[in-house]
């Protein structure tokens, strides 16, 4: 089964320790996202959404449990099976609540840098960055710094950056929080389109219940316990 899955977690647990105090952020979290599907992750603040996302994104290790990407075991407990930073660079794309663009780079450079870090030549990276910005309708803002872009434009540049290396996994943490409802719906539909067209596994953390119809699967998390609420067959 795992070879058809873009993302799979097995019994993920995460415990944060501070002195004698222990906070359990995740309890036995298991999920499976097939390639080409987009999943929503719902839950109140402090429920463990971001913790799950950062573990899947190979940013922090779980206390126990496993993470598979494209069927390959990447993390087993606190042990990494590969260089996680390299692996993340090649296989994971992030989109955040705030666009999180690098302020000293222009829009096109923000996209380009993700590819250059992945050893793509400057010329090729520039060309693909322009293509992506064009695809998301912000090509004319290519040479503007993030501070000169609107929230929606910044978010589209951030999505373009997340897609730059054709990642197997795209993780979005409340990407529509700063957008109006029209833009929010556009972005959600965009994620669904990306997942389907690029055969990637996409997880979108959201509080917004208005656009759930675009998701292939919906997961809820509360007090670190993950459960699948709705599954929409594709």
């Amino acid at each position, binding site marked *: 089964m795992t070879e058809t899955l873009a993302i799979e977690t097995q019994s993920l647990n995460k415990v944060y320790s501070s002195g004698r105090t222990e906070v359990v952020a995740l309890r036995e979290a298991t999920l499976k996202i097939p390639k080409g599907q987009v999943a929503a992750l719902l839950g109140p603040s402090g429920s463990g959404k971001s913790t799950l996302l950062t573990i899947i994104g190979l940013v922090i290790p779980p206390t126990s449990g496993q993470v598979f990407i494209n069927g390959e075991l990447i993390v087993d407990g606190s042990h990494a099976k590969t260089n996680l*930073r*390299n*692996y993340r660079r090649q296989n994971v794309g992030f989109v955040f609540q705030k666009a999180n663009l690098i*302020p000293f*780079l222009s829009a096109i450079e923000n996209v380009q840098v993700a590819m*250059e*870090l992945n050893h793509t030549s400057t010329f090729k990276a520039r060309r693909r960055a322009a293509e992506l910005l064009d695809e998301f309708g912000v090509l004319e803002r290519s040479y503007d710094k993030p501070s000169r872009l609107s929230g929606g434009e910044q978010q589209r540049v951030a999505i373009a950056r997340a897609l730059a290396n054709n990642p197997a996994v795209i993780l979005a943490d409340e990407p529509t929080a700063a957008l109006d409802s029209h833009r929010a719906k556009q972005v959600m539909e965009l994620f669904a389109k990306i997942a389907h067209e690029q055969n990637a596994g996409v997880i979108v953390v959201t509080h917004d219940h208005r656009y759930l119809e675009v998701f292939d699967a919906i997961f809820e998390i509360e007090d670190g316990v993950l459960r699948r609420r709705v599954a929409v067959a594709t």
Partner: protein
Amino acid sequence: MNLAFKDVQHNLGRFSLTAVGIGMMLMIVMGMAGIYRGLIEDATLVIDRIGSDLWIVQRDTRGPFAEVSRLPKSMVHRVEAVPGVESAREFVYHTIQRQHAGKPLRMSILGLSWPTDKGEWLPLVAGRPLAQNHFELIADQTLGFQLNESIQLGKEKYVVVGITSGMVSSGGDGMSIVTLGDSQAIQFDSVGEALRLERSSRERRAMDVDLFLKQPQLIEHLSQPTSQLPAFSSPQISAVVASIKPGHVIEEVQQTIANWGDVSVFTKAAQEDLLLQGMVDKARRQLGMFRALLTIIAAVIMALILYTLTLDKLHSIALLKLLGAPDRTILGILLQQAIGLGALGYGIAFLIGQQLFPYFPRRVVITNEDLVQLLFIVLVISVLSSLLGIWRAMRVQPTEALMG
């Protein structure tokens, strides 16, 4: 894409101002080295320019530059008679302070042995060497005299016939070069009242001496000028400088003269060493300590500035790590900026220094060796000062990009 350059471009004003600040500080470090070199050059200038092989000075003194040295004028003839000596001449050197154009003016007086030495060896930038035994003067341009200007020194007026460049004493005072006789006249000048009082005093002292009481007509002789009294020696000179004939060993001639009981003899190198070890050494150490302190202060300031610049982009660094940037990329950004800041500061220091140093009251001599040494030091402190920022950047977690 060069991320370090992009960040600098984004913060160009701040980076440039910082570089100017660092540059000014490095300019002072550069200037300190130049002042030290200038001290050495000034101190050894006369010795180098005169170029004699041996310096004969008063016994147990260290020569005319280190302390007062007095020799009878006849010493030059004794030295000339030593086998192996090609030529010998008197050397008079002393420092005076006079008022000129309403301002105090210090100058070192160098006496030339007329007529054998007319100052042809001097680095003249205007005018000519001395052409007569009296009342002509060659002045260094730092004294501010004009060609053909008349300068009152003692009872006489001296006409400036030549202007030199770079002829200053180890104390930084410009030199005036006159004939030996004139230099002594300037050195031993006394006003008329002092002379009258001295002659009167002689007569009073004579009244206590039996010879004068028994032969009162001798008292009349006491009112004659000092130079006409056999009991008084003629004005003394500071040193005798001698050149050795080719084929003779300098040390052997030195040993011959050193065997006399009334003189000490130094080779040219020994006289230079005495100057440097005695007069310049403390200044050298003082300047060296200032240089070291300023270099450390520059490094600390650079470290703080680079640390602040790093703090400003911690979020971007976290973001780059989240995007998978390897540590060497982050390291590269910070190191390139540190070295860039140091190199830019160094360039600014050099350019500003070139414009400012000529206006310093003392000569600032910037050598290529010192420039290369400072560049190396700047690069080292640039790298060292970036360590604090690098340490902070390495501690940044990619999760920090996800916060706020």
